[in-house]
């Protein structure tokens, strides 16, 4: 397998939600441009981070690229196959290669199902083993793999703590031998001491099975730790992409700069000296995004041009892309 072709390629992905009024005669009164033309690729074995404030579309992007919400337009290929337009058997075959882990460890496991049913489901759907017994054996192995004791196989989700549930969710994602996993804020709901456990587990599994991750998160410190490359989203579009150290040390887009300066550092001396770029106001509504550069109403350095022209997406330094009129690499 040649390593230069990316495993995952997303091209101009859009997801618009109609805003409707009325029950019987539904009228469309607006469009939420949750994801408004997003393109990126992920190499095999790589972890791409996707960060941004709530409502920026990062979660919707992750879910739409797996076809969980019907995409408005765009294409997504995983391992060379188009996941959004495949149907029937072909679609099932691609689904096997891509899985997802969710944020809320309480909502992501069916409370009426035993751990065995939950973890075996992908195997059952994809017809991976001949018998239920073999699937249960494999489910036990998977539990061991994620650091849970195999004898918990017949327990139910409510008996587990948040961190343990998250491990069960990871075991389920691994059950179909995927190549690619979308991690949709997998640690946001966990306590600090448990977050590190889950992150280390994800890294261990990546090393062991050569997995590729899209890591959607709002915790910029954790993203710097776990991701190889990071994409920053704002109001439905990607405004900057770069290797992690490049992005965190030389952010080009003023939004990235503001975002990074807002992250607190566990070091009181540093915190006292830090200069913050405090953004004013909130994220505007994605129903009518601002003209020109979408960030211009909150941007500390915006000029007249930013209100009119949409900045072009350009490579300011090798591998470092940004969409800003004023960013020069």
């Amino acid at each position, binding site marked *: 397998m040649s390593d230069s072709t990316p495993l995952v390629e997303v091209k101009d992905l859009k997801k618009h939600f109609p805003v409707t009024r009325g029950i019987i005669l539904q009228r469309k009164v607006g469009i939420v441009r949750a994801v408004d033309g997003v393109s990126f690729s992920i190499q095999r074995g790589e972890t791409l981070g996707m960060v941004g404030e709530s409502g920026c579309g990062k979660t919707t992007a992750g879910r739409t690229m797996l076809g969980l919400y019907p995409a408005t337009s765009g294409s997504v290929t995983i391992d060379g196959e188009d996941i959004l337009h495949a149907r029937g058997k072909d679609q099932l075959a691609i689904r096997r290669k891509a899985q997802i882990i969710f944020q809320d460890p309480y909502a992501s496991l069916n409370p009426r199902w035993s751990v065995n049913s939950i973890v075996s489901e*992908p195997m059952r759907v994809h017809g991976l083993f001949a018998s239920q017994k073999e699937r249960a054996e494999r489910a036990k192995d998977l539990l061991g793999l994620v650091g849970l004791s195999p004898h918990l196989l017949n327990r139910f989700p409510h008996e587990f703590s948040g961190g343990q549930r998250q491990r069960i969710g990871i075991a389920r994602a691994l059950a179909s*031998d995927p190549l690619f996993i979308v991690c949709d804020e997998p640690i946001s709901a966990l306590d600090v001491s448990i977050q590190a456990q889950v992150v280390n587990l994800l890294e261990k599994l990546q090393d062991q099975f050569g997995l590729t991750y899209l890591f959607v998160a709002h915790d910029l410190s954790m993203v710097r730790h776990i991701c190889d490359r990071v994409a920053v989203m704002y109001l439905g579009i990607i405004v900057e992409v770069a290797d992690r150290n490049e992005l965190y040390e030389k952010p080009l887009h003023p939004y990235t700069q503001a975002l990074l300066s807002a992250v607190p550092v566990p070091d009181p001396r540093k915190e006292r000296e830090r200069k913050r770029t405090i953004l004013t106001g909130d994220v505007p509504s994605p129903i009518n995004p601002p003209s020109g550069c979408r960030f211009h109403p909150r941007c500390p350095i915006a000029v007249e041009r930013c209100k009119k022209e949409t900045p072009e997406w350009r490579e300011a330094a090798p591998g470092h892309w940004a969409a800003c009129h004023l960013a020069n690499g």
Partner: protein
Amino acid sequence: MTAQTTSITQLSADDLTAPPLSLWQLAWLRFRRHKLAVFGCVTLVLLLLYSFGGAFVRTEAYANFNDTSRRLEPPSSEHLFGTDSIGRDILARTIYGGQISLFIGFVAVFIETILGILVGALAGYYGGKLDAFLMRIAEALLSIPTILLLLVMAKFFGGKIPEIHIAGRTFSGSVIVIIAIIGATSWMYLARIVRAEFLSLKENEFILAARATGTSNFQIIFYHILPNTFAPIIVSSTLSVANAILAEAYISFLGLGVQPPTATWGNMLESSAKYLDSAPWLWFFPGMLILLTVLSINFIGDGMRDALDPRSRAI
């Protein structure tokens, strides 16, 4: 990918945060604390024993045997509940009438539940036009007073279905009609409940996880979502049994329900209407039985509502 169990830090002692009880066991523990519900359970079991066990003591022929010489006799040692206007034993008739009333209650609710689940699940899961269509039908039916709907349908279908024979016994075809009518006019509330549950449950991440892995819609509806709606369905259906028994009583009381000689608690009440003052035992016993059944079922329903409340984590 190979499935090898590698040694990584196992959680300390695998200690779980909750006792190893299934959700149903937890619900049962909570139900037991509800004194009225337990009382309702005991009463309902006694009523079932009375109606179905009573058949071993008194035969159906005896229940339908009329001795016109002994009309309207008050309760005595021979006829514990007295006799009716044509001299039949009321005790025996409440036993057989109870069978029919309870049978109608449970079977009608069974039909109602199936219809309600199907309509609610389809509307809630698929949404959009199908949802709008099904819910408009439900609302249209709901906006007609149920009793009117019951009467019109009973009048329309009454007497069109021949007698049926099951297990060596003869039932008036009107039993089937009443069951069908009650079932068909009461599913709307349940459908709404199920739809609301489906609407919120289908947004859950475990459903997205199932869809991500390629689970079919059929499996998602019936294996993933439906089991999570059992609690409200059970509560609603339980309470519906009481309503169905009452509905049968209404129609029969108005003379449009199950036709004699098949007895039900409802048509026994009807035939007592002329003797309210002179022979109170005619309406007292069937009336009491209806009251007890409806009350006990409502107590059970209340108990289940508390016991199955998913928000309540306590035992």
